[in-house]
């Protein structure tokens, strides 16, 4: 073997060893299944409506994420302040985003506020993740989705074609998505989270979440072209990791969001509107109340503020029980689960 070949082989082995150590560390440590699952789930929850602007909405979200959401999440993570105080950051972002949305876009503003509030609750609550089961469910969901789409595979261009003219209908939610992307892996900023390149972790979760959104957009585009449904099983499997990701040992605050994710996939379009106008505010109200009732100091303030925001949004945005049976059933289940969660949750300091 020539010297050059030896050098090349050594470089290659060093490179492979370096990559291998990253993966070994990822496998050995427990942070990644939960982070990945919750990132994908959050992406599903906050997915924009592609019917309004196609990929234009996602492009705006990526822009906001790259220049505002993720840098601010990084700054927040690096600021040496008490952990509970850091939870206020996303609320400030939410107010900022609502101001961008403007008063005539009240619904988009509400969605923006509540999305960021959910991020705040996740951070304040310090979600714990379960096991690599979560990743298994995500894999199953992707597999089921892929099988669904392969039945009648067509190019997804119609739905994805960017339509900028109708920007008022999709820009507010895109801004919310951009802000949420940096915090997509809720709890990632906790000091005990061990992640490669910890300081840049918001970029990692932002990238993964954006990738999940793009995959979802392509899937929706293919389904739209073929006039097929996304599939009940896909929805169930996609929602399952939500439950696992947010129902760790403690706290259980936001797992209502996970169940709601599952059900909103099941309930279909009627439930999507209901999600934003009623379920999400309701979940925020309950979670915020529980957080405020069981914590002290800044976390209690954040919980209280979230509860007030959720309650106000619920009053403003309430549009009755949906007419579709599946959606109505899903609403009842979510309300029941939310109440049960609030009443049975363990008290913690």
């Amino acid at each position, binding site marked *: 073997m020539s010297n050059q070949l030896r050098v090349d082989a050594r470089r290659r082995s060093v490179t492979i060893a370096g990559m291998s150590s*990253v993966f070994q560390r990822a496998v050995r440590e427990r942070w990644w299944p939960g982070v990945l699952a919750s990132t994908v789930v959050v992406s599903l929850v906050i997915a924009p409506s592609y*019917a*309004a*602007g*196609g*990929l*234009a909405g*996602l*492009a705006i979200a*990526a822009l906001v*994420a*790259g220049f505002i959401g*993720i840098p601010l999440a990084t700054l927040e*993570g*690096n*600021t*040496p302040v008490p952990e509970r105080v850091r939870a206020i950051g996303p609320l400030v972002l939410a107010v900022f985003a609502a101001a961008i949305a403007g008063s005539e876009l009240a619904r988009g503003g509400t969605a923006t506020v509540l999305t960021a509030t959910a991020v705040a609750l996740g951070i304040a609550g310090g979600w714990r993740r379960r096991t690599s089961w979560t990743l298994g469910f995500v894999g199953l969901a992707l597999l089921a989705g892929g099988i669904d789409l392969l039945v009648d595979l*067509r*190019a997804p*261009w*119609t*739905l*994805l*074609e*960017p*339509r900028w*003219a*109708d920007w008022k*209908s999709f820009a507010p939610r895109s801004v919310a998505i951009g802000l949420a992307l940096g915090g997509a892996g809720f709890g990632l900023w906790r*000091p*005990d989270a*061990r992640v*490669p*390149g*910890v*300081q*840049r*972790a*918001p*970029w*990692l*979760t*932002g*990238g*993964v979440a*954006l*990738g999940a959104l*793009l995959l979802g957009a392509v899937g929706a585009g293919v389904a*739209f*072209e*073929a*006039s097929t449904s996304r599939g009940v099983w896909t929805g169930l499997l996609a929602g399952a990791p939500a439950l696992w990701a947010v129902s760790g040992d403690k706290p259980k605050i936001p797992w209502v969001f996970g169940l709601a994710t599952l059900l909103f996939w099941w309930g279909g379009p009627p439930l999507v509107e209901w999600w934003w106008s009623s379920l999400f505010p309701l979940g925020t109200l309950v979670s915020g109340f529980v957080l405020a009732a069981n914590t002290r100091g800044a976390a209690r303030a954040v919980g209280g503020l979230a509860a007030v925001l959720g309650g106000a949004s619920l009053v403003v945005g309430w549009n009755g029980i949906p007419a579709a049976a599946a959606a109505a059933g899903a609403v009842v289940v979510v309300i029941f689960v939310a109440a049960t969660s609030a009443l049975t949750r363990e008290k913690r300091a």
Partner: protein
Amino acid sequence: MIALWAMLAWGADKVVVEPPAQIGVESEIRVEDEDGLPRPGRTVRVTYRVGLSNAEDRAIGITDGLGRVRWTPEMAGAAEVSIDGERQPLSIAWGAPPASVLAILVVLLATIVGFVGFGLSSGRRWAPGRSE
């Protein structure tokens, strides 16, 4: 040459589009009953991009004595054809992938790779005083 037929059926009527609809290429729409007999005098319309913000409804024409009407699709993608108000989905083939979608896809993919790559690269750890 093997003729390609796209057949859509509902109720008693069938719609045959030959050749299959493609943007900028003239096709013949034929309306038949369940026995294959032509249905003259039917009003045919098409709605491009149904359910999207840029949906457009256009009249194609009225079928002749042989149940036919000629049509050149102006927009590609998912559409609906309606015969006297009865609607049926129709797919209009794209001549080529739209450049606007491809451009955004490329930018988004590059952004994703950039975010993930930067996130995986090792930076400074958390600020002093905060455990890893």
